[in-house]
């Protein structure tokens, strides 16, 4: 119990008898996700409002390339699938399923971050920096903050992975993974929006 991975102080109760019967932590993470919707909405609005208002290039047309990012998108989608399978493993006490798919999720997440780092470097090389024009500023800010979320998600998943590895993630505590998984899915759905809006509608 002392190594419960959560910000909760009610960790001792496995099924805390709350008013709704729902776990506090699950309510909290959903609340937080709801709040994050507005965060990304504001960033996406900024990107869209400024679209096409640059005073100089490079423009999205000249810079954005579809193949690499499609690969990244697929990675993120698959990782979403993997983590939900891992969660199933955690909930059903299937340790092997849990560890393997959680590991795969983390790998996908890392690859996505790697893809983004590579992509950013490539764009900078092509002459698009944060300071180059409005497109650069709003593109890097939007995708960069998404990338930051992915990174935090990866770190979170790794800590859960370590707990699981040490055998401290029995089915009763599957919520510890579920919270991270929900966050991870959210980061994925944000990308589901960003990908067409930024890359395919350029």
């Amino acid at each position: 119990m002392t190594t419960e991975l959560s910000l909760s102080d009610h960790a001792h109760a496995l099924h805390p008898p709350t008013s709704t019967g729902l776990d506090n932590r699950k309510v909290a993470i959903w609340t937080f996700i709801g709040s994050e919707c507005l965060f990304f909405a504001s960033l996406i609005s900024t990107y869209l409002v400024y679209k096409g208002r640059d005073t100089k290039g490079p423009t999205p047309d000249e810079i954005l390339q579809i193949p690499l990012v499609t690969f990244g998108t697929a990675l993120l989608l698959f990782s979403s699938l993997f983590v939900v399978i891992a969660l199933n493993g955690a909930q059903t006490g299937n340790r092997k399923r849990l560890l393997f798919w959680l590991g795969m999720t983390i790998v996908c997440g890392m690859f996505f971050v790697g893809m983004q780092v590579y992509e950013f470097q490539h764009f900078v090389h092509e002459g698009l920096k944060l300071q180059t024009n409005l497109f650069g500023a709003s593109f890097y800010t939007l995708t960069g903050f998404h990338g930051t979320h992915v990174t935090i998600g990866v770190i979170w998943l790794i800590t859960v992975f370590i707990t699981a590895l040490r055998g401290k993630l029995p089915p009763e505590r599957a919520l510890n993974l579920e919270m991270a998984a929900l966050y991870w899915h959210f980061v994925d759905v944000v990308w589901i929006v960003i990908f067409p809006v930024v890359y395919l509608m350029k």
Partner: protein
Amino acid sequence: MDSHAAHAPEAQGLDPHEKSHPGPGVYIKIGVVLFVLTALEVAAYEVAHRPGSLGTLLQPILVPVLLLLSAAKFALVAMYYMHLKQDSKLFSGLFVFPLIIAAVVIVSLIALFIYHYSYQRGML
């Protein structure tokens, strides 16, 4: 006041017990659909940017098509992977209400900027 305040979960309009989540089979099926939808998105993009009759046909409706496809993906992930379909309605509310506000914000900001800008153009 009640002395034996044993605290059972109460219904209060919400599901006291979450229905059990589907298994990997369902997840994989959804995963396949997601993959296909993504492929469709990219395909739509490619076609619309190629010369040819299909391309010219698709060009004007590319944006709505992409939005639809991505909305479908979004809904699938939220409903199945995030278990909104089975879990308490409270969670759906916690997600959908902010989403509505977020959508309203995005749409009205874009509309306001276009309107403001074109309005000023008109005055020139």
